[in-house]
């Protein structure tokens, strides 16, 4: 059962009514609405939000590494509706793979590539999943918490 503060928002209530069980957790903090979505149903929820609730902009997609928690990664989507400029945050907790949101917003393409590059999370059905910021032959994913800040190539301890 979602908290009252969340269900008083029309969008959260609409998702809960149309796709029961898709929202596993929700909160309303700092005037920001966050819905945690079942990772298996992320595209379904995104499509619903875009086509029925009018969230036509994907502001950014990123991830947070909660190593050593399980599931390890939180994929974070920031959506915006251009009609009233309302913002919504979606989250999905996964270990290594999630469905790509490119079929919903084409703009998700580069953001998902960045998450793949930096965290190593794979996006199924992504049209062009390859590294975007790091060189193509780079090893490892720099923003993971177990990746040292100075990288592996310039290790001071292990000559």
């Amino acid at each position, binding site marked *: 059962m979602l908290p009252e503060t969340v269900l008083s928002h029309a969008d959260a209530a609409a998702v809960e009514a149309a796709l029961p069980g898709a929202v596993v957790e929700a909160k309303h903090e700092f005037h920001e609405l966050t819905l945690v979505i079942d990772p298996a149903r992320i595209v379904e929820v995104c499509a619903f939000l875009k086509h029925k609730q009018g969230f036509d*902009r994907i502001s950014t997609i990123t991830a947070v590494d909660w190593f050593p928690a399980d599931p390890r990664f939180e994929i974070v989507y920031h959506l915006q509706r251009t009609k009233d400029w309302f913002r919504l945050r979606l989250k999905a907790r996964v270990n290594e793979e999630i469905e790509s949101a490119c079929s919903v917003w084409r*703009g998700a393409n580069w953001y998902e590539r960045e998450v793949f590059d930096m965290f190593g999370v794979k996006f199924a059905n992504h049209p062009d999943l390859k*590294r975007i910021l*790091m060189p*193509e032959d780079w090893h490892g994913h720099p923003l*993971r918490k177990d990746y040292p800040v100075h990288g*592996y190539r310039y290790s001071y301890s292990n000559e």
Partner: protein
Amino acid sequence: MRSAIDYPVESRPAPEPQESPSGQRRMTLNMGPQHPSTHGVLRIVIELEGETITRAEPDIGYLHTGIEKQCETKTWQQVTTLTDRVDYLSNLANNLCYALTVEKLLQLEIPERAQFLRVMMTEFSRINSHLVWLGTHVLDIGAMSMFFYCFREREELLRILEFFSGQRMMTSYIRVGGVALDAPRGWEKMVRKFVEVFPSRVDEYENLLEKNPIWLNRTKGVGYISVEDMIELGVTGPMLRGAGIPMDARRTEPYSGYEKFDFQVCTHTDNDVYARYRVRLSEMRESLKIIKQCLEGMPGGAFQADAPKVVLPEREKMKTQMEALIYHFKIVTEGFRVPKGEVYQAIESPRGEIAYYIVSDGTSKPYRLHMRTPSFGNLQGLSPMIEGALIADTIAALGSMDFVLGDTDR
């Protein structure tokens, strides 16, 4: 030593040039990463059929510096200096966005004088950024004199920034809890002089360009991209306003007291390179209007929040008060702590929507700091913009996007 989390790297050969339906052979052309008109290191792989671009694929990452990773190892106030270096043409917008995000987590009230100072400096940096854009963009298209005029005014601006913060470019002026220094003695005179002179200078730029047939021919009707594409691909800022969408976070989601100022959100409906130029030119005038209001209505009082655990104490207090000395020591050595939570704060940078997403785990360093930068989103709109256009128009189209590669690659 190799990472334990290797994954097999697929080697991707460049796609073979294909025969087009008309039987003409297509040519693949590599533009950049060292190309004068990209103002940085952007590589675009272009497929040509005659002079028409059939496919364009931007390749970014040449200026990746791992700032997001570095932020995780710095204390909250050290991060401010890193935010300067993301978008080095409008560093104050980055400073402001970072400070606002952390203040949202800390639930800190900022005094009005600090808000006014922040707004004024951010608008200065908006004019600064637009001036650099105008000068270099017109230079790319072939008019050299504009560059000198724009940089003449930019020099004045940098002098003002230096007067306020001690630095010309990497100012780090806006800090968590307020601004670094109070406005220096005599600042009104300096700002007033600029406010009086600048409008005639903008008219001068306009006169130089509006009646120039080469400029008009090279910009009008060039670089069209549909509004749907822009919204879907995450394009923001003057690009979107040049297509008639009044998206401006200063108006739609006011921050730092912008609701108190009177200004117009500049839009244009032509949706081409010329429209973006018109939008930026009017934005310079609107920014000047905001600066004028700051100058006239600058409130007195403190320029930093009353939060001893977050804001460094005054030098005088440190010499006379024990507590101030302790707080100073604590902030400098281990940094202040920020309560657990996550926030997303978007503001309007000269290039579009810049936003910071910060996750705090309650320690004195950010757990995760993500920058949603406008250039990254805008550059995603490059392919639909130049595909189908002539190769000669690429330079004009690229320039009108006004991206900064440091901002794209972070």
